């Protein structure tokens, strides 16, 4: 049976074909297309051949622009080329797409279509990216299911060779790219039959070769350019027929029939909806049900979007059609209508079909749900006497009134079993469901669908898995809203989410409960108890964490919960459940070794034995009253943020959202997730006031405050404190406090705490303890701690580790991973400069934990000041940050000019004081702020005039601001390097902070040019063969750039010093910060102390390059000692290195020898640099 079908997601379905039919594959990671590139890279590394028996060359480029360029060259060389992309990536390919099409070179781009960033970035699916590529001259083929993604991939590759017109094959990001389904895989014979050898040879013959030279890419003048552009017309005219031919041939081979335009529904339909992509499923289901109840409706599915098959579209419409709704999954503000709508109008007009009312609708932007009730609502709109010309589907537009009203009572019948699972990213729920749905497909022969929803957090992310399986093909490309089975894998989610809303009456409910079955009922939230009784749910509990722990699986409860699901869902005969699951586990974990298999198999037995029915009492639960709303929260938080946190974002109307994407900061504090099982508890008796615990905390969940003893007034009983030991602030008290509901329990603070009890070396000044036992005491302590006034910034020595940690962090409680190595640097920036900090943030992890809704960790101080943060794109961050700086500089100049002009009003002394102000210290900054207030006061007292208004608006610029351009290594070393280099060469006073995790962390650990030699990463799965780029060396080459390489875990003082020096340097500064990451495969609890090994082994040398104006100065300062251990002492603790050691020891050994040589050579070079005197001093003036 295995050979008859495959259980894959859309990305794999497409990638299998793309790989088999390509010779050169140019890749670059971007969500949600990255897995296609990952598959190609892994297959190539494993030596898998393409259709013709050779192994395709897979090359990762520095950006999608680079990938498109490489693809362009590859196809011009006469090879078969492909690439994969989405969203901004496709936009970066546009210039080359015009070229490739203009040259009639066969090529295929597989696009997991995704929203293009506008007012905000979104990783989710819509057609705004492919619609932006309409003008490029590429043919466009749209698939709407996993099977179609597989089939159309072949059609695209076959048709491009037949027609010479390059093809974009696109499908809906996430909805299709990440949906797991059952497909009938195409055979190699199918591929051979459709991809004609003559076409391949013809393509080869056109290659660029000195043996039969031609010139491509000429420059043309007004005399011929136009004619030459029209010369390609016949090729485009031939495309629809060619694609139709391939569709026909595919049908004869596989029995699966597609057409350029397909119609389904009543032959005498009066109303029709036209659309393409995954939404076709919901539309078709709706049409079938509506027709069943006596309506006359139909759906037109467009397969080929470009060249637009106008004649076929018109021909597909029944003659009875009077009303059409054309749905576009994109928005083109200001246009007469969205693209497909306009194309349909034009097609009807050109082909003389009159008497039809056409309306255009926008739907599904950024994966907004598209369901039968919505389609029903749309058909209802078409029955109105005067249907609105332009509508939106799936939202409430209370501003311009465009939305259609869905018919919420409308349901389409299904024979499929539907199941929903609530879990955490870290508990393995999604992985188990991926395996589970494939198992069901394999063992029952049923059709299956698996779709997985994640929230935007990296630590403690909530996942919801939606599974369907049944006898019919599953077309429902939307979330399960009526479940036969609901599982909650985390007891704590019962409080946070409306887990049982989705359960149908009589459904089965499986709960992972830490309490015994008999004790579980009373522990359930009242609303859950009520729903269980009201819906008559069949409830079962299992203590999955205990079982997982006892069989040696730590916190991975996936196997336990999966076993219970199989037992309860009656998917298999009871006696087959254990053997089938055990066999599956043996296959699944064979690559991980026998002990892992055995532990999981033991978990299956235990789970099946310990699964217990929950006794539901008969007396009814009272309706719970509404919870009181917290009244201290800002309006926006109450109105919007709280709804988002409650999972009700879909219900927010248009009017609730900012029109331009500007959001208030400091909202993460309203989200109390209480993730940690253990939290750090402070023992003041041995604390040495060092601040290390606070400086390393990734989530600002450990805070230190120094305060006057009077600050203790009203403290909760036993509130811990000690006498502060610093030379300044004598007589003050110090408290170290954990934020018990914001801590992720990563344990880094405990690992770095140097204060060890003299009587017990396992007891430190900070110790992890059970959160369950300590939260009740720590919550009031934290609330009190927050009310203690912040220290006077001017009174603290912020140039020390200890001093810096007394300052308020303005990056707090982010959704970054537990133990994240990036956030401590950013948090430190906010402590040092937060009230005058402007951050330009490249897309990546930092833009996600920094700016992904529902909340942001960037915060404000008591005065309302705090970091101003913005993300433009991935590729342009340095330029974007420079632009922000230039704008500011201009405003400062203007403020100075106005000051000079208004000197009589402001006063000469005050003007002079402002212009001459020393703003290098906190005291100086405070004094300048005070002067600016005086200026405002004096201006306000005057008659308002233009100049006065201008200066009032710009006066804030007179207080020095600091500009930090922040991003990861993917940005700095690869996609944004050109801009970064230019900004470094600009001489301007900007600071660039590279959070170097040495991989593309956010998209799943693909190699960048920062990836070290010998490390295995995605896109370098056989171990990276080339060394890491020395970015600092490139920056140093300019001579006037301050450059530092830092590692907070290795040397905190050097980090503080480097950030302050960079900020103070009046020209460009580059700080490269070693950022430990989950993609390194290390124990994150010890990640900071592990950085010491990185430095001690010479892997990460610490230095500061301070271009000094003093003649004879030595600008290059090495801040680390000569390596004291071999590199392997560092690498052996990291899975990214050791995995290669295990899978390919010879190559690992070879690469490690080279990597050691890299370290030795670099150290030798740096030592020489450190001795070098600068012969050409620079003033550092921009």
């Amino acid at each position, binding site marked *: 049976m295995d050979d008859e079908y495959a259980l894959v997601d859309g990305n794999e379905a497409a990638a299998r074909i793309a790989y088999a039919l390509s010779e050169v594959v140019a890749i670059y990671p971007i969500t949600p297309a990255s897995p296609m590139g990952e598959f190609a890279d*892994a297959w190539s590394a494993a030596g898998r051949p393409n259709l013709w028996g050779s192994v395709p060359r897979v090359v990762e480029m520095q950006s999608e622009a680079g990938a498109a360029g490489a693809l362009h060259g590859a196809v011009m060389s006469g090879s078969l080329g492909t690439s994969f992309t989405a969203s901004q990536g496709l936009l970066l390919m546009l210039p080359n797409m015009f070229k490739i099409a203009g040259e009639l070179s066969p090529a295929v781009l597989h696009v997991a279509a995704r929203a293009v960033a506008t007012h905000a970035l979104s990783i989710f699916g819509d057609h705004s990216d492919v619609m932006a590529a309409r003008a490029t001259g590429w043919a466009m083929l749209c698939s709407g299911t996993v099977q179609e993604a597989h089939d159309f991939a072949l059609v695209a590759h076959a048709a491009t060779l037949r027609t010479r017109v390059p093809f974009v094959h696109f499908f809906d990001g996430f909805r299709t790219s990440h949906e797991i389904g059952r497909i009938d895989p195409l055979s190699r014979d199918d591929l051979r039959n459709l991809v004609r050898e003559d076409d391949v040879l013809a393509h080869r013959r056109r290659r660029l070769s000195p043996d039969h030279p031609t010139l491509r890419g000429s420059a043309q003048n007004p005399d011929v350019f136009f004619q030459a552009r029209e010369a390609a017309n016949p090729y485009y005219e031939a495309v629809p027929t060619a694609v139709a031919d391939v569709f026909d041939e595919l049908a004869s081979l596989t029995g699966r029939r597609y057409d350029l335009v397909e119609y389904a529904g009543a032959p005498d339909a009066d109303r029709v909806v036209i659309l393409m992509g995954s939404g076709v499923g919901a539309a078709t289901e709706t049409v079938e049900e509506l027709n069943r109840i006596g309506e006359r409706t139909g759906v037109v599915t467009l397969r080929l979007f470009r060249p637009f098959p106008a004649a076929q579209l018109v021909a597909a419409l029944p003659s009875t059609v009077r009303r059409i709704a054309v749905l576009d999954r994109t928005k083109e503000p200001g246009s007469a209508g969205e693209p497909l709508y306009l194309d349909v109008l034009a097609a009807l007009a050109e082909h003389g079909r009159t008497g039809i009312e056409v309306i255009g609708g926008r739907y599904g932007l950024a994966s907004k749900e598209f369901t039968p009730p919505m389609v029903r609502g749309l058909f209802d709109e078409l029955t109105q006497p005067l249907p609105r010309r332009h509508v939106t589907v799936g939202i409430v537009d209370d501003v311009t009134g465009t939305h259609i009203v869905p018919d919420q009572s409308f349901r389409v019948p299904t024979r499929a079993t539907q199941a929903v699972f609530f879990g955490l990213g*870290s508990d393995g729920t999604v*992985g188990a469901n991926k395996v589970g749905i494939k198992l069901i497909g394999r063992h029952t022969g049923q059709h299956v669908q698996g779709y997985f929803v994640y929230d935007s957090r990296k630590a403690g*992310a909530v996942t919801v898995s939606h599974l369907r399986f049944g006898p019919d093909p599953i077309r429902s490309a939307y979330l399960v809203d009526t479940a036969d089975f609901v599982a909650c894998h985390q007891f704590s989610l019962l409080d946070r989410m409306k887990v049982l809303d989705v359960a149908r009456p009589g459904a089965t409910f499986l709960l992972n409960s830490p309490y015994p079955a008999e004790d579980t009922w009373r522990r359930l939230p009242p609303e859950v108890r009520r729903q269980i009784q009201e819906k008559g749910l069949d409830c079962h509990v299992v203590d999955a964490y205990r079982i997982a722990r006892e069989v040696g699986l730590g916190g991975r409860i996936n196997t336990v919960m999966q076993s219970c699901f199989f037992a309860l869902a009656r998917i298999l005969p009871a006696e087959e459940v254990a053997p089938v699951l055990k066999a599956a586990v043996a296959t699944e974990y064979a690559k991980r070794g026998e*002990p892992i298999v055995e532990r999981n198999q033991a978990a299956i037995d235990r789970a099946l034995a310990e699964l217990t029915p929950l006794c539901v009492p008969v007396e009814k639960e009272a309706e719970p009253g509404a919870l009181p709303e917290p009244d201290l929260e800002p309006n926006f938080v109450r109105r919007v943020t709280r709804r988002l946190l409650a999972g009700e974002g879909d219900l927010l109307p248009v009017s609730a959202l900012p029109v331009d994407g500007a959001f208030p900061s400091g909202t993460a504090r309203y989200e109390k997730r209480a993730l940690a099982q253990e939290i750090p508890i402070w023992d003041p008796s041995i604390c040495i006031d060092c601040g290390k615990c606070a400086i390393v905390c990734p989530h600002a969940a450990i805070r230190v405050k120094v305060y006057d003893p009077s600050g203790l007034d009203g403290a909760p009983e036993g509130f811990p404190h000690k006498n502060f030991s610093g030379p300044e602030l004598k007589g003050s008290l110090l408290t170290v406090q954990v934020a018990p509901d914001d801590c992720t329990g990563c344990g880094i603070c405990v690992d770095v705490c140097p204060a060890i009890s003299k009587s017990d070396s396992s007891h430190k000044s900070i110790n992890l303890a059970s959160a369950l036992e300590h939260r009740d005491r720590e919550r009031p302590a934290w609330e009190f701690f927050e009310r203690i006034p912040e220290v006077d910034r001017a009174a603290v020595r912020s140039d020390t580790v200890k001093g810096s940690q007394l300052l308020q962090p303005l990056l707090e409680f982010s959704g970054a991973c537990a133990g994240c190595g990036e956030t401590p640097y950013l948090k430190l920036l906010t402590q040092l400069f937060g009230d005058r900090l402007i951050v330009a943030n490249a897309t990546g992890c930092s833009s996600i934990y920094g700016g992904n809704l529902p909340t942001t960790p960037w915060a404000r101080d008591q005065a309302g000041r705090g970091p101003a943060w913005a993300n433009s794109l991935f590729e342009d961050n340095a330029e974007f940050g420079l632009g922000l700086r230039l704008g500011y500089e201009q405003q400062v100049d203007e403020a100075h000019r106005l000051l000079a002009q208004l000197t009589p009003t402001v006063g000469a002394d005050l003007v002079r004081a402002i212009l001459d102000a020393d703003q290098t210290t906190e005291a100086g900054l405070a004094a300048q702020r005070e002067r600016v207030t005086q200026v405002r006061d004096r201006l306000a007292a005057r008659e308002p005039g233009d100049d006065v208004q201008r200066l009032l608006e710009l006066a804030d610029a007179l207080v020095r601001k600091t500009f930090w351009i922040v991003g990861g290594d993917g940005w700095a070393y690869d996609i944004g390097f050109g801009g970064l280099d230019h900004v470094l060469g600009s001489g301007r006073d900007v600071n660039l902070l590279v959070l170097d995790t040495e991989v593309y962390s956010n998209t799943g650990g693909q190699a960048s040019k920062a990836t070290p030699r010998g490390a295995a*990463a995605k896109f370098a799965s056989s171990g990276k063969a080339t060394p890491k780029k020395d970015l600092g060396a490139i920056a140093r080459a300019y001579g006037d750039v301050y450059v530092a390489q830092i590692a907070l875990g290795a040397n905190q003082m050097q980090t503080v010093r480097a950030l302050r020096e960079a900020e103070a340097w009046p020209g460009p500064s580059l700080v490269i910060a070693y950022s430990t990451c989950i993609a390194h495969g*290390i124990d994150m609890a010890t990640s900071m102390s592990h950085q010491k090994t990185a430095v001690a082994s010479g892997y990460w040398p610490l230095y500061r390059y301070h271009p000094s104006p003093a003649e004879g100065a030595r600008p290059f300062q090495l801040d680390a000692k000569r390596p004291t251990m071999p590199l392997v002492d560092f690498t052996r603790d990291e899975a990214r290195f050791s*995995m290669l050691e295990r899978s390919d020891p010879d190559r690992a050994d070879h690469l490690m020898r080279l990597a050691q040589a890299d370290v030795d050579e670099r150290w030798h070079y740096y030592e020489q640099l450190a001795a070098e005197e600068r012969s050409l001093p620079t003033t550092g003036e921009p």
Partner: protein
Amino acid sequence: MTDLTTMYLGLRLRTPLIASASPLTGRIDTLIELVEAGASAVVLPSLFEEEVEAEAWRLHHLLDTHTDSFAEASGFFPDFDFGDSGVHGHVKLLGAAKDAVHVPVIASVNGVTPGGWTRYAETLADAGADAIELNLYAVAADAHRSGVQVEEDYLKVIELVRSRVDVPLAVKLSPFFSATAHFARRAATAGADAVVLFNRFYQPDIDLSTREVRPKIELSQPAELRLPLRWLAIIRAQLPGVGLAATTGVHSGFDAAKAILAGADAVMMASVLLRHGPRYLARIESELEAWLIQQDFQTVGQARGSVSRPGTADPTAYERANYLRTLASYPRPTR
């Protein structure tokens, strides 16, 4: 020409000189060098049950923890096959060693659970090991368990493995038995064909700056040979049918000669080869041969055990009386 051949574990070896478990026997290139330099057999690095399992778990855990956690990343690492790590790594090494060298390859196992001992011993025997060495060592840290109980556990392991494995079986002992000779006899009765004296292991050290415990192991010194010498001699006399191998502190052909005189059938080395490289083994063999010639031994067999407890003029030299004398003759520290 002196005849250096010896019988150990039923295997006819060209010389008594065996490369014992060390990083050098864990790689095929150095393994070949060892054999080219004269190793008559090799013992592969010990398969530690807890290490195999902990390592498998660690890697699995690191790779698995963040899999399918985020929308943008299904995982953070390429999909690797670790089937070859852990026990499979040992099996693979064993297979490669068998292909690469033509001397007997002895596989070593250190288990934790009875199931682990037998499973891994069987796995390695099935994979073609010429003999299995059971590396019997665990710290008897439980204050409620007596030495007798500890010994009983070991004996059960030997019996269990013996019942499952057909190839010759050696047991490598620690020097910490109350009655080493008695235990050696019982080990033989339980099914051991040979006894290896003694294993060396990581011992705790304390880092004074961090006050943390750091396990450490140092290369052996020639002086450490004294301990196995004593027990070789004592056991040789009492258990003539049991194979004996010396390990720990053999750093030259002369050290090897001493072990043979005390009764060793085979002499194992690791530290000296790690210090001087695999090729050093050739020199050790020449030294041994030269000494045998100089002493006019035609075969190793003649020398074996000739200075064992009954063979020596002063049998008590291997016992406590000698302890006192040795101390008394220890040179005073110079000021």
